[in-house]
């Protein structure tokens, strides 16, 4: 460690989003945004990133907002930590898969600092909360020099390490729409140790109407260049009465939709196999919650 490890930089802690965007514009190309710091500090320490300017978002009070209403759904500000999401009663009740997913991130110490939005902005295909957020239909609110825009989370991830953020833009919040009715969910993750990046992750969220799966969302992590929705697998179940055969078919199709690579953690073949297994488990869990299985 020691003082020599990091390059020195100018630190700003603005108190408004406008100020933050202006700073990023002013220092275009040499500024980095700081939220929880669990990733940024590490990269700066390893000298993988050498920003001249760091803009700390944590004194912008609106970004710390985590609130739920039956009408608006869930609003999760950019500096909300994984720990806050895990502990939030409304998240546990209405977005249970997200609370479960967030609890997998790092260690307790990491979750007390690292933010959900910051983690997503790293655009890791293996981001633990991504499959849950995708299955809940999360929408990203972005503010930049041109103003504010919204983007579905699927469109936010472009490729490993790159999001749809333009220069000087920041994510200010995630918005999860309210559920029109009762939902069942399942979230599963394969990992080597407790604190390790996911080998494969999967999340199913199902809405039911009169014994039929009216809405089905199946999302996968760590099996493609971005977290992805298994839309063809969803189509197998959508509008249908669930059965063991349909479940098996949907799981098989999800495995086909996955585009995993082999890496230091495991092989692509293992990932494909696990997509089928985890999708089946997650979908069963969702249906059991709805008492449809």
């Amino acid at each position, binding site marked *: *460690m020691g*003082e020599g*490890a*990091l*390059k*020195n*930089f*100018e*630190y700003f*802690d603005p108190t408004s989003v406008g100020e933050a965007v202006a700073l990023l514009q002013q220092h275009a190309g040499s500024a980095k945004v*700081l939220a929880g*710091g*669990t990733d940024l*500090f*590490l990269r*700066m*320490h390893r000298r993988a990133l050498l920003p001249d300017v*760091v803009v*700390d978002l*944590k004194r912008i009070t609106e970004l710390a907002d985590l609130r739920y209403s039956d009408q608006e759904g869930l609003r999760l500000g950019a500096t909300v930590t994984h*720990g806050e999401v895990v502990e939030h009663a409304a998240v546990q009740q209405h977005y249970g898969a997200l609370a479960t997913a967030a609890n997998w991130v*790092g*260690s*307790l*110490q*990491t979750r*007390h*600092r690292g933010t959900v939005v910051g983690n997503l902005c790293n655009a890791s295909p293996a981001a633990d909360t991504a499959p849950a957020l995708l299955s809940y239909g999360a929408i990203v609110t972005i503010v930049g020099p041109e103003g504010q825009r919204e983007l579905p989370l699927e469109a936010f991830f472009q490729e490993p390490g790159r999001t749809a953020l333009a220069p000087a833009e920041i994510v200010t919040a995630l918005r999860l729409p309210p559920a029109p009715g009762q939902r069942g969910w399942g979230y599963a993750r394969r990992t080597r140790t*407790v*604190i390790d990046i996911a080998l494969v992750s999967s999340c199913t969220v199902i809405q039911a109407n009169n014994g039929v799966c009216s809405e089905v969302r199946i999302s996968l992590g760590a099996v493609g260049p971005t977290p992805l929705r298994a839309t063809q697998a969803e189509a197998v179940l959508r509008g249908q009465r669930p059965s063991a055969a349909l479940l098996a078919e949907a799981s098989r199709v999800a495995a086909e939709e996955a585009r995993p690579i082999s890496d230091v953690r495991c092989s692509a073949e293992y990932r494909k196999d696990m997509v089928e297994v985890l999708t089946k488990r997650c979908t069963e869990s969702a249906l059991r919650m709805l008492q449809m299985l």
Partner: protein
Amino acid sequence: MKRLITLTVNGTPYEVAVEPRQSLLQLLREELHLTGTKEGCSEGECGACTVFLDGQTVDSCLIFALEAQGRDVVTIEGLARGDQLHPVQKTFAEYGAVQCGFCTPGMILAAKALLESNPHPTEAEIRQGISGNLCRCTGYVKIVEAIQAAARG
């Protein structure tokens, strides 16, 4: 260029000039000479640098000192009341949960946080609760026993 920050550590207010690139861990060890908090991995993986920041356990190696402006920090040095050890410190000593001692400050703080949020944890909950703190010596058995003993009171 250095910036003056104010923060409270173990109940005492401090005013310290820090460089932006300095971590909270460096501030505690090198500026305030509170060397109980250890540098293990500098990656936020081992938990040897665990401190309480505004009441929550965090890895101080991944936090800039500037981020601690106006905040409340508790290190291992802040646990005992004079000669009175905290119950977790006592049971760690009694149950042989300390070998080389390097993980111990962080481990004790993690255990304290666990018991404050869950006063009667199961063994599985204990292991989950300290999973952010690595120990290379003990194999965790005595650590778990010490925490169970502290929970029994």
